């Protein structure tokens, strides 16, 4: 069962990618505050509270999002 903070990381990463596909770029502040910082918190939580399996699953979910960029 996927831990909630692993799903959070995937969701925030997906959000970051979605913003990068927009014609008009969001401001640096928006990118940092709404997109990067939440993702950083997710990564910290995976390291603090997750297991090795959670970390692997997070990487796999992020990888799925990466593949969508190329498809």
């Amino acid at each position, binding site marked *: 069962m996927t*831990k*909630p*903070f692993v*799903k*959070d990381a995937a*969701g*925030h990463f*997906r*959000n970051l990618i*979605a*913003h990068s*596909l*927009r*014609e*008009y*770029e*969001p*401001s640096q502040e*928006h990118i940092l*505050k*709404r*997109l990067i910082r*939440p993702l950083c*918190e997710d990564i910290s*939580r995976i390291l*603090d*509270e997750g297991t090795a399996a959670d970390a692997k699953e997070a990487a796999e979910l992020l990888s799925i999002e990466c593949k*969508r960029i190329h498809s």
Partner: protein
Amino acid sequence: MSILKVRMPEVLDQLFRRAVSKRFGAFKGSITAGALAAIARYSGVEPRVAVMATESSVVIDAPQELIGGLLRRLIIKGPVTATARMNRKEVEERIGRVEVTYSGRNYVEFRHVAPQADRLLKLGAFRAEVDGRDIVLEEDCLTFSVNGLGEALDMVKGLASELKITLPLFACKRKLELYVWDEPNTHEVMAE
């Protein structure tokens, strides 16, 4: 298409805003709506509303009242599963009683019976699973997963009607973007 952003001194910025303002510029007919949109884009003025709809998601950067209006239109069939970066007490103070399914340091996952998703806005930031869809909110930034472009456009259509903007939905086959600026007061729609 490239986007140029420039930093300008405050005095120049004020002159620019005066030139493109409705009262002093556009109203006198010295500048067209299209030129206003171009100036807003190329000067790097942050739009008040930015929306992108694709076949997999809707991304909305907008004031919370607009995001709330969009979430209010969602009909939720069952309980919502959501996460928030706060403890249970803080969550319950904002949205009422919840059933906690996971808790960590300053973090909680919970189930909540919310007749309308806009209630979750009180959390400020959350990720929620609603009827198989993923909703991520960070203050004024909402991302909503959808099943197909049709669903995405339906959501954006409602938002655009609140802004009194007509969208060229017939021209949209892959992606639609909407940007609304306050200063200068203009908007731009891009459909692919």
